[in-house]
């Protein structure tokens, strides 16, 4: 019996230590969005994005606190949370997906790898399948990930009243910049 328990602990410890080495994470990831019209530019940036990347499975998860988006205009920030994102009801946006062509990336070799990321994007309580061209830059114990894609507010049930429709482009350009570090689990 003792033997079995020992065995269990050994296996668990092994798998955990193995898994620890293929997980990368960041808590200071950057996401910004931008919309340009002749009336005004709408832009905001968030530098507190939490994300995990599992290099063995290609899994990728993101969590974004909507209130952490910083706007140049404070009133715009208030309207973003209050009228559009309804941050009280939906405090977070998120993404769960994976690197579709994981085989194209050699995580043991430093360099730039273009990849395709697919998964489910959740904004304003609405989840949609998305696909984005991205790039991974592998370094020693760190990986940088960047991606640019666009999102239409109406796809996520974000209503823009006709009075201010001219202020927003039909789709928002989203830029993602992640600076992953090797994840060391807390004891």
């Amino acid at each position: 019996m003792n033997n079995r328990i020992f065995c269990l602990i050994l296996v668990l410890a092994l798998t955990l230590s193995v898994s620890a080495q293929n997980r990368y994470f960041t808590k200071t990831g950057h996401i910004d969005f931008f919309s340009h019209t002749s009336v005004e530019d709408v832009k905001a940036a968030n530098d507190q994005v939490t994300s995990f990347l599992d290099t063995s499975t290609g899994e990728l998860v993101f969590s974004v606190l909507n209130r952490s988006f910083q706007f140049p205009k404070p009133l715009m920030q208030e309207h973003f949370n209050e009228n559009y994102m309804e941050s009280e009801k939906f405090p977070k946006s998120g993404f769960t997906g994976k690197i579709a062509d994981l085989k194209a990336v050699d995580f043991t070799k430093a360099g730039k790898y273009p990849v395709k990321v697919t998964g489910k994007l959740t904004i304003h309580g609405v989840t949609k399948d998305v696909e984005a061209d991205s790039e991974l830059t592998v370094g020693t114990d760190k990986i940088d990930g960047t991606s640019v894609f666009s999102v239409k507010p109406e796809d996520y049930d974000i209503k823009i009243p006709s009075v201010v429709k001219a202020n927003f482009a039909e789709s928002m350009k989203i830029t993602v910049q992640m600076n992953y570090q090797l994840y060391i689990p807390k004891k």
Partner: protein
Amino acid sequence: MKAYLLIALLFTATALNAQNLNDLLASESTDGPQPVEALFKATRVINGHSVKQLKKGELDIRISHRFGRVNSGPYEFFGLDQSNIHLSAEYGLLDKLMVGVGRGTYEKTVDAFARYNIANQQSGNGAFPVTISYLSTIETIGLKWSDQTRTNYFSSRLSFTQQLLIARKFSNLSVQLMPTYVHRNLVPSVMDQNDLLAMGVAGRFKLTNRLAVTGEYYYVLRPIPQRTSTKFYNPLSLGFDIETGGHVFQIVLTNSQGMREGGFIGKTNGSWLNGDIHIGFNISRVFTLHSKRKK
């Protein structure tokens, strides 16, 4: 048997590993207290202040208008022939400190105020429950002296208000309490108090993201029986907020003519029950003059 167990364990371990990524994300996401914003859409509930703060670099140009009393009848077009305006420019010096100056038709007042945001309501773990601001105002009455023969001092034109604003947002409903102290340097007679204590209560109920109904009431403590010639009432106002981008329109019904604390708290002489109701509106337009968070 042992080998079998080992394989089973390995499988469960990898399965655990796979589902873990979202759990890890949840455990690493920072969930500190978040500020609760937009308890009110505009810096005024109706006549009185709300806890809505102008942030640094924001300029708010406000035009407030009150018509005459609706019970003045068809000759006065139910009050719409008369008008009473208050104009003001208000600015956020700091995120927590805003100042403003204004001019009102009522008693030809010129006024100024400063408001400091002491604390903010938060949501999440370890959250602070209410938003608190402190308001200090000064008003000068600009009317010509009724008695030109006596020595009149400028200081006699002044009145001051100190007010604490305590508010909390419960989802669609925001509630605010306003303990208030008004000091008038000169009052018409010994029957009038120089110092007034009042307790205000205000609320906003959001109908949609951009429409809300509002109300405000001040209970003014008047321990001395009032003169019968000019009886003062407690101000009660009801409003409807419409927000469109940088504008906030407020359509109001009130028994006060004054649109500043000294006026509406101290000198509201209309009674809702007698139909002394003024239709009015406030328009607020916010301009961002200086945006600090440049990227």
